């Protein structure tokens, strides 16, 4: 039986846009604009979409690294206790900060250049009650070995490491308090392709060993197919399609996902499908288009798309739940 670990309800993050001498607020970037999403314990949920569609912001909002403007983030513990995180006082967040962690994209800014690895990692451990230095060294050393690095590396400075090594150290940091869910924000995008594969395998191995749940953010759908159990496709701050990863490739419902999938380079020449070229850039999240946010670029757009906003509806493909938001889906909606 699948159990949720996080339930996002109507989550919104709007950044004010300021202009003029007096920093007047002239508008809002609707970085995340009403996201409903359940993440199940033990799954790998992919979150895909073009650059700027709000993936990172969504990940940060879950950890409250940015404050959500509206909506709920509910954490469900192993004993089914539900806690709403966005309304908690800062200090009451602590027990949940342990459970939710993040691995960042850029290996060059993800480690503090002035501290050794141990130096930057020990404060969080100290804060969460590991008082003795030996114990802290042991935890960090063990984790370094778990990501195939040497214990001694903990006394080195970040500039002594390569990008792939830094990324593995970033993983150690995320793991050091034994979290339940890790947001991997394009954790491998900045690495060489050969190293990418290693780090991905490592992440999957760690997931198995430590019973982790991943929210795996990526703009590259070719990676997600093999890693993710389910995939959510995001466009302009909203989720437009959410389904099992197999169904996303074989029973695509949303025109935007279709376009993304067709852009994946295919090795097998026979399977080469016609590439759908998306015209124009992603519209500004300050003034998203009326109606379906995708309609100016959608090859299938009709009149209704320009006026009415499609909602995320539930369908069934291949016997699995399949959510999509498009007016032109001719499958029966299920409730």
């Amino acid at each position: 039986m699948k159990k949720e670990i996080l339930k996002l309800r109507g989550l919104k993050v709007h950044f004010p846009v300021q202009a003029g001498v007096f920093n007047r607020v002239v508008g809002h970037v609707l970085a995340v604009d009403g996201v409903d999403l359940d993440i199940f314990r033990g799954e790998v949920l992919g979150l895909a979409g073009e650059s700027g569609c709000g993936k990172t912001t969504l990940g940060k909002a879950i950890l409250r690294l940015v404050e959500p403007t509206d909506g709920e983030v509910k954490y469900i513990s192993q004993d089914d206790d539900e806690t709403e995180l966005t309304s908690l006082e800062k200090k009451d967040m602590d027990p949940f900060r342990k459970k939710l962690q993040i691995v960042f994209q850029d290996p060059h800014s993800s480690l503090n250049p002035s501290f050794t690895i141990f130096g930057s990692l020990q404060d969080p451990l100290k804060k969460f009650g590991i008082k003795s230095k030996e114990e802290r060294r042991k935890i960090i050393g063990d984790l370094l070995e778990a990501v195939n690095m040497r214990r001694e590396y903990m006394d080195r400075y970040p500039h002594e490491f390569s990008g792939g090594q830094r990324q593995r150290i970033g993983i150690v940091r995320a793991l050091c308090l034994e979290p339940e869910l890790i947001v991997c924000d394009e954790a491998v995008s900045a690495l060489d392709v050969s190293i990418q594969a290693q780090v991905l395998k490592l992440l999957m191995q760690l997931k198995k060993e430590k019973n982790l749940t991943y929210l795996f953010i990526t703009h590259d759908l070719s990676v997600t197919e093999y890693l993710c159990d389910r995939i959510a496709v995001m466009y302009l701050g909203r989720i437009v399609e959410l389904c099992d990863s197999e169904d996303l490739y074989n029973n695509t419902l949303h025109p935007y996902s279709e376009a993304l999938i067709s852009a994946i380079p295919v090795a097998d020449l026979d399977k080469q499908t016609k590439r759908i070229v998306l015209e124009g850039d992603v519209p500004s999240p300050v003034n998203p288009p009326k109606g379906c946010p995708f309609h100016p670029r959608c090859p299938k757009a009709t009149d209704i798309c320009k006026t009415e906003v499609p909602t995320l509806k539930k369908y069934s493909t291949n016997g699995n739940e399949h959510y999509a938001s498009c007016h032109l889906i001719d499958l029966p909606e299920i409730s």
Partner: protein
Amino acid sequence: MAKSSLDKKFDQIRKREEEKTFSTKKRSRIVNKFLNNRLAVLGLIIFTIIILASIFAPLLSPYDPMRVDLRSMRQPPSFDHWFGTDSTGRDVFTRVLFGGRVSIFIGLGSAILSAVVGIAVGCYAGYKGGWIDVIALRISEIFMSFPQIILVLLLVSITGQSLFNLMAIFILTGWGGMYRLARARMLSLREEEYVQALRSFGLSTFTICYKHMLPNALSPIMVNITLSTAMFILTEAGLSFLGLGVPLNIPTWGNILNVAQDILILQNYWWMWGPVGIVISVFVLCVNFIGDGLRDSTDPSQQG
């Protein structure tokens, strides 16, 4: 099975990593770059000599900087009196040494203290943002736009001339620059991912900004401290020359220079103001060389 092949691949990577010699420590790279800058090294050497000479002034000179000796008034430089004597027979060389103590103390002390105040406010406000930042920014603007000389006149007329009043004025007018520097660094640092990571652990603002971020903001601040030291020493000399700085009975470089106000002395007794003027210029120049050297060696965009 899959796991062991993964392990094997990692072992290969690991071996390669270990064979590669690790680059030397970051700190020593900065030191090396600094040492390659001839002017900076020269500056550092002369700077050190002047400071040591001031500190060990009593060992280097048999005279008392304050003692009046009417038998040897206005003597030109000689073996006994290297820089000659002044109108009351005091040894000018001794006075330059002892004056250095006070002048350097004022310059360096004001620079460091304004840096401490500026950093303390700037780090917090820059990291936190919001209304704290807005208020601190406005206050710093008020202090920075207030003319130093008027502030000096004001304070001198209210509380009288004293060394500490002068330092207080330097700090009041000087912390704003440091604050802005620290704040600007923090604004860019706080978006770095390692800061986000620390926040994701819920560490306190103090730990994050003063312990983890500040070390990465220090190098431009160090440069600024050296440059402000030079500026404060010059300002002290200027104000004391005008009789507004440190009380005249305390020897400082500016107070020694003060005698040059007398046209007779300016024309006839060059040793009373010449050497001290040169010492001030040389010292300030050296401090600026050191500052430039520090800036070049810590600037990440000039790595290599």
